[in-house]
């Protein structure tokens, strides 16, 4: 018998919180991107836990699609980062404020 689902949900909550705080605290765009991945993984863990708890394969299918979308998101996001940093010297997100009025 596996561990109770509440512990998985608690761990997912902790992971999500670490990712969210990291996204708000860090200034490096790449590290912020990694924190987004952390939050996605926490959500995936929640999905799988509920799939087990409710005995429903739909949760695992959802994780499958989340993985695909995360891969696409990373590809496009890193492309944007590379395109921006070709013209910039710093790695700080606050330097990218060209659209600020």
């Amino acid at each position, binding site marked *: 018998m596996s561990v109770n689902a509440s512990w998985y949900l608690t761990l997912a909550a902790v*992971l999500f919180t*670490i990712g969210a705080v990291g996204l708000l605290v860090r200034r490096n765009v790449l590290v912020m991107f990694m924190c987004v991945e952390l939050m996605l993984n926490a959500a995936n863990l929640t999905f799988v836990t509920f799939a087990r708890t409710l005995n429903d394969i739909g949760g695992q299918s959802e994780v499958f699609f989340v993985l695909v979308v995360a891969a696409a998101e990373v590809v496009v996001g890193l492309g944007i980062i590379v395109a921006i940093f070709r013209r910039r010297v710093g790695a700080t997100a606050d330097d990218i404020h*060209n659209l600020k009025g």
Partner: protein
Amino acid sequence: MHDYLLAATIPDAITFVVAAAICVVGALGVVLSKNPVHSALMLIMTLFGVAVLFVEENAQFLAAVQVIVYAGAIVVLFLFVIMLLGVDRQEAINADPLGHQRLWALLLGALTLAEVLLLAKGNWATGAHSTSGSLDQNSRTNVYVLGKSVFTTYLLAFEITSALLVIAIIGAVVLARRTRSRIGSAGGGDLTPPFDDGQGPDDDTDTAGGEAPETALPEPDLVLSEGRLVTAGESAARPPSGSLGRPAAAAFGGDTSAPAPRPPSGASGAPNAPKQEAHR
């Protein structure tokens, strides 16, 4: 104690505790590392921990995909971009343009954690269950059940996913491609005013002058590459001669056989021609 706390057998409890510790330590490492490369490696650690938890929850296929896609592809992509952009960029860690952003971030994080923990405590997921098939249909394997679900119930979403992947690939190629004419025209026209940090005039002159050679670029490029190829082969074969009268003919015709009769004829004036092409 463990039996009461985690409501599981001892191996399962140990697995969960170890994997959870790996996950949390990796996540903290992602946030706290100064070096982005260390952050990426810590992210791999977290992803492996989550994969172990997937196995623990009987999601074997997702665990394999987690390791292959995340740790194998996405983190490698991260590392590639880090190396491409340079590791030694300094992060302005003390910049605080919004005012007490870190304090608010920690406060918001504590609030989120409290809320989600409150939600995780109660059994609030009520209603009808199992609308898309149970986890073990006649004791089938996880891959069978998941594949059947994805390819029947979620078939439309799966096909749309393929379109999404194609769009992502095209977008990445368009974003990351460095064509001189395209960057010049777009950057000179639209992007130079906001991005203007002393490089704008250079870009403008570059594009203004670069428009005409841009159209004529493919032809000399072809000759240049052929000339280089032939010069390299010739010099390796016969250092004193080093000549090629007609670059195109030498490239297409005799790289190995024909040069024997040719050098004395074109050795006088021709050898500088491809080098000038190369320097230009």
